[in-house]
C-alpha cells in the first residue's frame, strides 16, 4: 500500500502532456518586467533608477525586514521604466522594466555547468546566502525560504520534507527538474538539512512519476539520511499539511505550522535554487515553467528568466491556440486566471495552462442537494456546503466557529460538486470577513 494522506482529496485527470519534454532554455525576450513584490511579505524598495545599466544577477531591490526577499535583475540591459505592472493575481505591483541587451552575468556568479558537491559553510552562512539570493518557496506560495530555514526559538526541527509531489494536473516542471537536476537537488537538500540541523530528509513523489522516483532513489543510495518515498496519486498531496500527514502520519495542529510537528517542507524547485545560490552564487532569476494545455501545439518545459512576459512563453510553445478561453498561471486547481498576456513570470510561476473556451466557462449553478461530496473530499475535515451558506448570509462569527480559517483553498469541494456550486469562491469571501472580524477585535 502506497502512503497518502488520510482524509478527503480528489483525483482529477492528470494530463501530464509535457512530462517527457526536456527542459529547454527559453530565448530572452526584448523586455522583462520584474515585479518588486514576488513573495508573501513586505515589498522591497528599488535600488536602480531609470536609464541605469544592470547586469544579469545584479541586485535591484533589497528585502527589508525578516519576511522579505531580495530581487535581482534576470537580464543585462537598460532600465527603461519603473512603473506598476499587472501581476498574476490582477493587482498592480511596482516593477522594474528592463530592455534586454547582450547577456552579461555578474562576475562572481559561477555559470559553469559542473556539479559542486563540497561545502564548508555553517548553517548560518547558508541561510544568509539563501536570503541574499532572494529565494522564495517555488511551489507557488512564495514564502521567503530563509525564514522557513531559520527554526524559531523554542522549536526544534527533526525532519526535512522535500515536496516533489506536483499534485496539480498538467504541470511537469518539478518532475523534469527531478529527472534532470537530481544530483544538484541532493546537494541542495544537504544544504537545507545543515541549515536546519536535521539528520533526516524525505523526498515525497507521487507514483505517477516512476522515472523520477527511480532516478532519485538511485542517487540517494549513497546519501545517508535522505530517502525517496513514493506516494499514491491524490490531490492536494502537495499541500504542506497533507504531505506531512502522508509521510509521517503527524497532523499539523489547526492554526499551526509544520515546525509545530518538528518538520519543515521545501519544494524541489526551492532546493535546487538553494544549491545554485550557495554553490554557484547565483540568485533566483530563472525557473522552470511548464507551458501546456489541451490545444497547445508543443507542450513544453522552459527555463525562463523572471520578468519574461507570458506571451513570450506561449509563442515558444507554438502560439496561442485559436480556441483559447482562459490562461491560468499555475495549475488548474489552484492557479490564477490571467487577464493579460503581458503578465510577467515570477519566482512562483510553475506553469502556464491554456484552456480552450469549452473548459473555461463554468456550468450553471443548481441548488445544493446535500449529497455530502464536498465534506467527503475536504482534506481539512470542514463542511464546505455549510461554510458557503454561512458566507452568503454573512454569519461571520458562526463561520469562525466552523473553522473557515483552516481552509487551504485547494478547491476539491468546488471540483466535486455535482450542482456546480461556487463553494470555494464563497469560502474565500468568508475568510476575508473572518479576517476582518479578527483584526477588529485586536483594535
Amino acid at each position, binding site marked *: 500500500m502506497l502512503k497518502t494522506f488520510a*482524509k478527503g482529496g*480528489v483525483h482529477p485527470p492528470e494530463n501530464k502532456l509535457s512530462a517527457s519534454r526536456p527542459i529547454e532554455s527559453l530565448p530572452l525576450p526584448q523586455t522583462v518586467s520584474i515585479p518588486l513584490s514576488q513573495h508573501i511579505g513586505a515589498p522591497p524598495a528599488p535600488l536602480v533608477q531609470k536609464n541605469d545599466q544592470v547586469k544579469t544577477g545584479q541586485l535591484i531591490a533589497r528585502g527589508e525586514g525578516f519576511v522579505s526577499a531580495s530581487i535581482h535583475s534576470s537580464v543585462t540591459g537598460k532600465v527603461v521604466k519603473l512603473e506598476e505592472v499587472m501581476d498574476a493575481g*490582477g493587482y498592480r505591483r511596482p516593477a522594474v522594466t528592463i530592455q534586454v541587451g547582450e547577456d552579461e552575468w555578474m562576475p562572481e556568479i559561477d555559470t559553469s555547468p559542473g556539479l559542486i558537491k563540497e561545502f564548508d559553510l555553517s548553517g548560518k552562512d547558508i541561510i544568509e546566502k539563501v536570503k541574499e539570493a532572494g529565494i522564495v518557496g517555488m511551489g507557488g506560495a512564495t514564502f521567503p525560504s530563509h525564514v522557513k530555514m531559520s527554526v524559531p526559538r523554542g522549536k526544534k526541527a527533526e525532519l526535512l520534507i522535500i515536496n516533489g509531489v506536483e499534485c496539480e*494536473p498538467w504541470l511537469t516542471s518539478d518532475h523534469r527538474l527531478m529527472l534532470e537536476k537530481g544530483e544538484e537537488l541532493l546537494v541542495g537538500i544537504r544544504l537545507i538539512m545543515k541549515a536546519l540541523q536535521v539528520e533526516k530528509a524525505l523526498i515525497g513523489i507521487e507514483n505517477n512519476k516512476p522515472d523520477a522516483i527511480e532516478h532519485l532513489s538511485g542517487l540517494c543510495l549513497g546519501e545517508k539520511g535522505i530517502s525517496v518515498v513514493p506516494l499514491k496519486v491524490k490531490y492536494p498531496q502537495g499541500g504542506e*499539511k497533507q504531505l506531512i*500527514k502522508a509521510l509521517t502520519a503527524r*497532523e*499539523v*495542529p*489547526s*492554526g*499551526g505550522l509544520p515546525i*509545530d*510537528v518538528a518538520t519543515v517542507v521545501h519544494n524541489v524547485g526551492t532546493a535546487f535554487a538553494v544549491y545554485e545560490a550557495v554553490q554557484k552564487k547565483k540568485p533566483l532569476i530563472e525557473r522552470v515553467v511548464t507551458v501546456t494545455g489541451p490545444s497547445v501545439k508543443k507542450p513544453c518545459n522552459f527555463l525562463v528568466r523572471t520578468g519574461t512576459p507570458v506571451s513570450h512563453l506561449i509563442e515558444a510553445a507554438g502560439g*496561442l491556440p485559436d480556441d*483559447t*478561453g*482562459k*490562461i*491560468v498561471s*499555475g495549475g*488548474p*486547481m*489552484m*492557479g490564477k*486566471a*490571467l*487577464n*493579460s498576456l503581458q503578465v510577467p513570470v515570477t519566482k512562483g510561476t510553475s506553469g502556464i495552462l491554456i484552456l480552450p473556451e469549452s*473548459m*473555461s*466557462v*463554468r*456550468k450553471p449553478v*443548481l*441548488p445544493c*442537494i*446535500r449529497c*455530502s*461530496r464536498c*465534506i*467527503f473530499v475536504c*482534506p*481539512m*475535515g*470542514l*463542511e464546505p456546503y455549510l461554510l458557503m451558506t454561512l458566507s452568503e448570509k454573512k454569519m461571520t462569527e458562526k463561520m469562525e466557529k466552523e*473553522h473557515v480559517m*483552516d481552509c487551504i483553498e485547494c*478547491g476539491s469541494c*468546488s*471540483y*466535486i*460538486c*455535482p*450542482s*456546480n456550486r*461556487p463553494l*470555494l*469562491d464563497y469560502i474565500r469571501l468568508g475568510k476575508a470577513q473572518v479576517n476582518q472580524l479578527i483584526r477588529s477585535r485586536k483594535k
Partner: protein
Amino acid sequence: MDKLLRVSYSPHIHGENSVPRLMWGVIASLVPAFVLSVLYFGLGAILVTATSVLSCVLFEYLIQRFIMKVPPTVNDGSAVVTGVLLAFCLPATIPLWLVALGALVAIGVGKMSFGGLGSNPFNPALVGRVFLFISFPVQLTSWPLPMGFKTKLVDAATGATPLGVIKEGLLNNQQVPPLMDDIPSHMQLFYGNMNGSMGEVAAMALLLGFIYMVVKKIIPPVIPLTILGTVFVFTGILWLANPESNADPLFHLLTGGVMLGAIYMATDYVTSPMTKKGMVVFGVGIGVITVLIRRFGSYPEGVQFAILIMNAFVPLINSWFKPKRFGEEVQHG
C-alpha cells in the same frame, strides 16, 4: 493581443459529476427491479410506473412554471426518481387516479412546497406513499398475487403480504413457525415471488441496484448497510429470545419495504445526514424504529414511518455529528 480572456477564481476544472448524471444513475440502477416487477405483476407494473413518473414530472413542471414562476428544471431527473420510487411502493393493481393523486402530494406537498430540489426535509416519494396509505387503506393493502401478465388489473386475486400474515397470526395468538408454512421459502422471497408492492418485492434486484450505485459512487454504502445491519441484529435478538413469536432476521430483511427503503428512500441525498457518523446514527434509528413498528406496532410494516421520522431528525444530526477536522486533536499554542 486583443483577445479577451476569461477570468475566474480557481479551481479551473470541474469533475464529471452533475445532478442529472447522479439522478439518471439512480434510475439506471432501478431497471432490474422494474424488469422483475413487470415479470411478477405484468401490465399493471408498467401502467403504475408510467403514470407515477409522468404525473411527477408534469406536476413539477406545472408548479414551477405557473405557481413558483421559475424556469422548470424537470430534466434534472429528480422528479423521475421520485416517480419511480413512489410507483415501486404501491400495489400493481392500484387505480391509476390514486397514483396520480399520490404523485401530486409527493411533488406538490413533499417537494415543491418547501422550495423544490434540495429544500425538502422529507422524502417526497414517501410523503406521497404515506398520504395514500392513510387516506386509502383498502386500495393500498390489496396486494395482487405475483402472476405475471396473468395478473388482472381489476378484481385480481389478492392476498396478505408475508409480514401481514405474521402480524395477523400473532394477533390471533398463533405461533410463528406454523405460520411460516403459508409463506414462500426464503429463496422465493429473495427472488421477490410474493405479494407486495410492485418494486419492493425483489430483494435480489434491489441489491443489484445497490451494488451498481456503490460501484458507480452514486451513494456511499453507509446508510443501507447500517439499516439492514440494525434490522438483522435487532430482529435476530428477538428471534433468539423467543422464536415462537418472532420471525427470523433473514425473513425480516427479505420482506416488506426494508430493502427499497434502506437502499433508495433513506439514501435520498436531500433528506439524509451529511457526515458518515451522522449517517450511521440515521441508519440505526431507522432500523430500530422499523423493527419496533413491525413487532410491537399495529401496522405490519414500518419502514416508511421510520424513514420519515428520522428525516425529521436530520438537521439535528447534522449539527451534532461533525466530521473530524484535520489537526483538531493536537492543541496548539
